[in-house]
């Protein structure tokens, strides 16, 4: 047995094969990279590399297609569920999932989100909720917490002016077309493991035709929040988790 640390026999962890070598544009500490890795691992583990058609959003993940080496359709802002509906209905044997942020899924695309879910489309939705618009420079999102400061609510979100943080997954869990709604995070190794399990369940549901599955990942945006990656994790635990408690909202 060799002691060479680069001996493949000694490798205990590698980059998923489906993650390519393109340099990521995500900020250091951002949750997107971890979730991308999980998706790449799961697609390979399920043997669905040739059967996957992914739908990218508008938002920070607009370039998701640069990193996970499957076929991608880039949707207009908020329209991913409508795009995915047609992709899946016309290709019922494929794994079709959308990857969307809070602005995409819970603001501009609310109608598409609710109606695709209500039709029970056999798709999976990965929903990154970091309470802010990262790509455009840190503006208020539908999920921004009360009193949370952003570029468009510099004095903090005022519920009288801006309404309440939208718990869109709580709404989606009410719909009979939806079979799985779960809220997870990726800030610890244990949380990453759990999120991976739930994304896999969502993909399995989509392939088995059980209806729509939504995996919300409560995430950090250290650039938008103006905190270090480590402080972002702490802030998320203290502030985001009480508003968006982790766990299954529906799992049938």
């Amino acid at each position: 047995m060799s002691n060479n640390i680069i001996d493949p026999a000694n490798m205990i962890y590698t980059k998923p094969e489906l993650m390519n070598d393109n340099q990521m544009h995500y900020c250091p500490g951002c949750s997107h990279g971890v979730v991308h890795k999980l998706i790449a691992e799961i697609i390979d583990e399920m043997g669905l590399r040739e059967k996957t058609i992914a739908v990218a959003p508008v938002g920070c993940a607009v370039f998701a297609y640069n990193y996970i080496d499957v076929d991608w359709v880039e949707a207009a802002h908020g329209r991913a569920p409508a795009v995915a509906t047609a992709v899946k209905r016309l290709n019922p044997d494929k794994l079709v999932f959308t990857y969307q942020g809070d602005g995409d899924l819970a603001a501009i695309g609310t109608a598409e989100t609710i109606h695709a879910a209500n039709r029970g489309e056999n798709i999976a939705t990965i929903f990154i909720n970091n309470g802010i618009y990262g790509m455009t420079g840190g503006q208020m999102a539908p999920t921004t917490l009360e009193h949370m400061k952003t570029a468009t609510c510099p004095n903090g979100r005022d519920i009288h002016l801006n309404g309440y943080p939208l718990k869109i997954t709580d709404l989606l869990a009410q719909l009979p077309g939806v079979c799985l709604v779960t809220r997870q995070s990726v800030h610890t190794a244990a949380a990453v493991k759990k999120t991976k399990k739930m994304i896999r369940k969502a993909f399995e549901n989509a392939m088995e035709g059980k209806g729509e599955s939504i995996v919300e990942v409560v995430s950090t945006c250290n650039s938008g929040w103006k905190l270090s990656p480590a402080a972002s994790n702490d802030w998320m635990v203290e502030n985001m988790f009480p508003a968006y408690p982790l766990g299954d909202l529906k799992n049938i």
Partner: protein
Amino acid sequence: MSEEIFLMKGNEAIAHAAIRYGADGYFGYPITPQSEVMETLMDEAPWETTGMVVLQAESETSSINMVYGGAACGKAVMTSSSSPGMSLMQEGVSYLVGAELPCLLVNVMRGGPGLGTIQPSQADYFQTVKGGGHGDYKLITLAPSSVQEMVDFVSLGFDLAFKYRTPAIILSDGVIGQMMEKVVFPPSRPRRTEEEIRKQCPWATLGRTPDRKANVITSLELDSSIMEENNNRFQAKFKKIEENETLFEEVNCEDADYIFVAFGSAARICQKAAELARKEGIKVGLIRPITLWPFPSAVIAKYAEKVKGFLSVEMNAGQMVEDVRLAVNGKTKVDHYGRLGGIVPTPNEVVVALKDKFGC
């Protein structure tokens, strides 16, 4: 199925023609005066025969994005709507062009602006031909003037869309959509298999096979030098379409002193008006653009050398007349006659307008 003859509405004809073409999907939202398209499809239930998907979406915004998703997979997909619904779809149309996706759109025009009226109109010429969405683009625009052309342009529209990887639109109106005429259907074609689509559309997102790189359908490119190249590629494609795909009909123009230019239902009216004018001794011809883009400028320019004037007759306040003027380029007189708000002109009033405007 061999060639068959039926009597039906223009909207119904669109639905039957789509099934027979071997279309893979239709996504739509009800709106007068085109609702019979989806109603007929739902009644025919093609998912039980050809496997065609038909889905009622929650909005026109959703319909056009379903079309985007289906088209991304190389499928022959379509939607139909009427003017206010088409306005909602313009975002998606721009994305379809930007991502170079083939599909078929149908607009059965009604009067606007706003909620307007459910009566026929041709007031969406600018929106369709000049680009209703953002960015530099053109839309292959087919203008049927009969129920038969509603049938014929479904296959023509799909074929052109796939030939050039860009959307095509049938720009119809409430008259053509609602009127019943005799139609002949071509024989049915089977839908393409996934293997056939992969071969015809190697860019389609149908799942990455080991023999190729991942396909990405997107209109996004942040590097301006590449985005300029993309735009140059689109413009080269549009130029090719202009050179090769212009269609028009010409009636009695050889000896004409005046020429009506009219499309769709207005062209039907003008055909009768030209006959009436000739009975009064005024030699009138008709040029009917079949493709509104590419516009048949050459034939208009040719006759501009010899006629006393062109009258662009449209059910709008004067839209196509701008393209007629560009083609004529000041060589002879050009005028417009139009009725607005859902009023369909009679042949007699068109003749009166001709005499009025040209003093003939």
